[in-house]
């Protein structure tokens, strides 16, 4: 399988955007490089599949680019194989000239306030993974029987969570939202959704474009409480995106309409605790702007923390505690400031959780520039990747290659056609593996593998 022409072998762990862009940069370099991509789940695309909101189908069309990269010569995909205990980074390094870590930032930051462990308090990222059908989150239970939810944090993940809570089942039913989430959301009694941030309305991390979607909701009015905040005139030296977001927030101050749900944007409030009796009853804040400090409480049933993520440390890889990423300089993993040989990082594990999908292209290009510069000076690895798959067959009973993923893809699209969705995601690992083998019988309709999830469905807007 490994073409003889490839002088250098590179392993990439993680099949999200940064991993794919790293693969592309390596395979386009003109150097004799082969790439093996290892992904914990049987399906590729990382946060494009499990992070991007179901009502943003156009963004997901970026997967066409990833499919094109996967079709380049000298690329292999190993889905369903976790690099960790059974297959260590060290084992990979013994088989590849270079290893690029592209596994992102999987750990939600905690608020560090009393009551955070109460039932009803959760990570926004877990809710996102749940409604997007991540196999490890499908059994999470989100109790939407209360009327008030509080989301802590003023970034785009907070907007996604608020919007999904604010939308009606009719607004979501033709998206690729997981069936279990659509069922739960259809019965939701949540009416008031608070989006609360520490800083002022001119300092949010919201994308203006995503804020504007709140003006188009069928059943929800957005309200921004801007009283008491100095409204700086547009300042050319400031962050243009934050200025555009502020302009949109100002349009949320018009008289509230008569829709049954509200999204209420609050500013200058620092979380200090959650009150309740093992169950969330009230979110407590300190008003942090101005000279006076005041306590503010919001009665609520649910709290979603959306204050950022950090990278999970990997055994044997130096970690930068201050930044919450693998210790690196420009993508070269470093120990005490000195680059280690043959081990690299790209994406959120390198620069932290920020940027748009395309930010990863520039990020991965930088990392791969270092890989390519280093490759001629790296020793040939003592072992061959075939020893991983042949020798460790007992540890790795099966993996999903790209044609296997295309069979999963076809199965999901076929199931979606019966429910008017662009796809019905498989959410159980055993179903994914079965579909990859071509072993799922129930749906008789087989479409050729589609690269565009939105092709056969109705686009939500």
């Amino acid at each position: 399988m490994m073409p003889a022409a490839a002088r250098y072998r590179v392993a990439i762990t993680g099949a999200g955007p940064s991993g794919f862009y790293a693969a592309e940069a390596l395979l386009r370099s003109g150097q004799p490089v082969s790439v093996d991509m290892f992904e914990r789940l049987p399906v590729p695309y990382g946060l494009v599949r499990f992070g991007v909101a179901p009502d943003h189908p156009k963004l997901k069309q970026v997967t066409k680019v990833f499919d094109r990269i996967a079709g380049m010569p000298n690329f292999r995909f190993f889905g369903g194989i976790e690099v960790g205990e059974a297959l260590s980074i060290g084992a990979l390094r013994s088989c590849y000239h270079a290893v690029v870590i592209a596994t992102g930032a999987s750990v939600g930051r905690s608020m560090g306030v009393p009551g955070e462990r109460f039932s009803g308090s959760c990570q926004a990222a877990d809710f996102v993974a749940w409604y997007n059908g991540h196999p490890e989150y499908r059994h999470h239970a989100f109790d939407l029987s209360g009327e008030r939810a509080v989301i802590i944090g003023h970034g785009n993940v907070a907007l996604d969570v608020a919007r999904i809570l604010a939308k009606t089942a009719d607004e979501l039913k033709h998206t690729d939202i997981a069936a279990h989430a659509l069922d739960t959301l259809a019965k939701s009694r949540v009416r008031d959704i608070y989006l609360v941030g520490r800083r002022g309305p001119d300092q949010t991390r919201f994308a203006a474009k995503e804020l504007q979607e709140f003006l188009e909701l069928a059943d929800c009015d957005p309200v921004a409480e801007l009283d008491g905040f100095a409204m700086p005139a547009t300042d050319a030296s400031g962050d243009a995106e934050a200025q555009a977001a502020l302009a949109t927030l100002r349009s949320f101050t018009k008289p509230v309409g008569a829709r049954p749900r509200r999204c209420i944007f609050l500013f200058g409030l620092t979380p200090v605790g959650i009150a309740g009796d093992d169950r969330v009853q009230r979110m407590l804040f300190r008003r942090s702007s101005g000279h006076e400090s005041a306590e503010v409480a919001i009665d609520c049933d649910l709290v979603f923390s959306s204050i950022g993520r950090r990278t999970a440390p990997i055994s044997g890889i130096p970690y930068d505690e201050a930044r919450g990423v693998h210790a690196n300089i420009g993508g070269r993993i470093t120990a005490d400031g000195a680059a280690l040989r043959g081990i690299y990082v790209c994406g959120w594990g390198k620069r932290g959780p920020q940027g748009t999908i395309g930010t990863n292209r520039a990020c991965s290009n930088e990392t791969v520039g270092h890989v390519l510069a280093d490759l001629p000076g790296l020793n040939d690895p003592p072992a061959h990747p075939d020893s991983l798959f042949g020798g460790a067959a007992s540890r790795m009973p099966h993996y999903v290659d790209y044609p296997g993923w295309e069979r999963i893809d076809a199965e999901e699209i076929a199931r979606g056609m019966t429910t008017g969705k662009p796809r019905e995601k498989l959410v159980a690992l055993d179903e994914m593996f079965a579909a990859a083998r071509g072993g799922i019988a129930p749906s008789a309709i087989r479409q050729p593998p589609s690269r565009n999830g939105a092709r056969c469905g109705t686009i939500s807007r």
Partner: protein
Amino acid sequence: MPYVVTDLCSGCRYTECVSVCPVECFHLDDQMTYIDPETCIDCGGCVPACPVGAIKPAHQLPPDKRMWIDINRRRAAETPVLTGRLPPLPGADERKRAIPGR
């Protein structure tokens, strides 16, 4: 709602946009870049990347800039895709400084 490169790019062509585009939807000629509306996925990542603020969502264009929607579509069909950054055009930095409000 595709994004559109406007005439502010013309004569600068910094091509910062290209390095952050996830789908390689930028084309170019001697003067400026253009967005292929069929390929653009509306991520908006190029907007803050542009040093001169030349890129706007189509729906936010003032009336006197609307023709750039058609110009982007037409020129993207006529010109090659740009897959990596290029040096800016000569004089780009001076021109950028001269743009009002920047």
